[in-house]
């Protein structure tokens, strides 16, 4: 599997010269399976550039949305493959009571908020709630589970052969739990992350910022590390950088995370901070 980061920022895009090294686009990660199958995790503003520089040119694309907060869907209508009638695009998203996924997305992707209506898209697009059971995409097995965030949100695990990626971009597993002591079966998302080759996890806040944001649905760096350790992830990537954090601040959070990882007896090189354009092959 090849993993490429197209948008790593949380909350809102930040076109700021002090944030260019990590990038200002919101959540979007591309996964290319060994057979060339393309999967896209979230449709934040990063999906626009992905769409114009697609690594593969198959007509079938799988888009897996974790949830429908704006920073995870705002790039969808700027994804060029949606405007090619030859394309088949499957969009998965969180299950919810009430309207179907396409109707919920249409609240944003329709007038007066959008000049193009979701139903006008030329591509053949199918929308579905992420199943509660595993499903197959190309040669990979995909699993979704509802995780702790504000609003219904799923995390994903994509497994191909012995490799696996767990994607939990917006996640607050420490809410109501002591991550260090809790029975692992009672920690949100840990089943998805257990033993993952690559864990992409929310690390939005510095520890000192978190107390003012408890319940907002995001993690401190220490909680991201604690979660990764409990899950015994092979590699932790901090993701969903706060829009107020410039490159130096993200550097510092990455250093703190690596130090905490090392204090737990792990190799600090197993922790990194997500940056736009970074590619990981697992």
């Amino acid at each position, binding site marked *: 599997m090849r993993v490429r980061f197209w948008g790593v920022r949380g909350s809102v895009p930040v076109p700021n010269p002090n944030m260019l090294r990590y990038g200002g686009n919101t959540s979007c990660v591309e996964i290319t399976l060994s057979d060339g199958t393309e999967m896209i995790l979230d449709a934040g503003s990063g999906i626009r550039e992905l769409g114009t520089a697609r690594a593969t040119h198959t007509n079938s694309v799988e888009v897996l949305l974790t949830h429908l907060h704006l920073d995870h869907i705002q790039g969808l209508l700027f994804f060029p493959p949606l405007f090619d009638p030859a394309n088949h695009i499957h969009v998965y998203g969180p*299950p*919810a*009571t009430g309207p179907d996924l396409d109707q919920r997305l249409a609240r944003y992707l329709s007038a007066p908020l959008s000049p193009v209506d979701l139903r006008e898209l030329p591509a053949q697009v199918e929308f579905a*709630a992420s199943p*509660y059971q595993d499903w197959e995409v190309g040669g990979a097995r995909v*699993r979704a*589970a*509802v*995780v*702790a965030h504000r609003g219904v949100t799923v995390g994903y*695990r994509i*497994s191909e052969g*012995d*490799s*696996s990626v767990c994607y939990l971009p917006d996640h607050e597993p420490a*809410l*109501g*739990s002591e991550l260090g002591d809790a029975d*692992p*079966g*009672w*920690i*949100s*998302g*840990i*089943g*998805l*992350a*257990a*033993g*993952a*080759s690559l864990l992409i996890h929310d690390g939005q806040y510095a520890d000192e910022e978190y107390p003012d944001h408890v319940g907002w649905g995001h993690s401190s760096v220490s909680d991201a590390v604690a979660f990764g350790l409990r*899950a*015994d992830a*092979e590699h932790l990537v901090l993701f969903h950088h706060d829009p107020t954090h410039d490159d130096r601040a993200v550097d510092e959070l990455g250093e703190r995370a690596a130090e905490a990882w090392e204090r737990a007896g792990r190799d600090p090189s197993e922790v990194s901070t997500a940056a736009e354009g970074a590619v990981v092959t697992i």
Partner: protein
Amino acid sequence: MAPAPYGHTSGVSVDHQPLLLIQARNLITNLALPAFLIDPDARLLFFNDAAAEVLGRRFEEVGPLPQDEWARDIGPFDEDGRPLATNSLPLATALREGHPAQGRFHVRLGESGLREVEVSALPMLEPDNYEGALVVFWPVEAAVPETT
């Protein structure tokens, strides 16, 4: 429904409870009202410290229990201590029919023996899926706790 096995890549395997049950456990952990979490197979998954106080045992001592074990130890019973059918419990209604249910019967509560309790069961419903029930109970003759 038993939790599905998830992780596998590096020999780690964790059975991860659904978020709804995790959040319900977090909620009842901080609730002063005795409360249980039950899975769709009627297995006792967790009870809080308020329940432990009236049961006389903490969850950490008891652990998860299948229905036949908690029904044998706790109830339900009639006023003479004869077992009642568990399919008449509010819990059974919540699990079977997917709506809240209430009831009153006797249970065996630690050293205080047979006590009449009010019970409410709330199904833990997700869209197109359900994960068990949250059950709260209150001894009928118990005093209402003072509020500040």
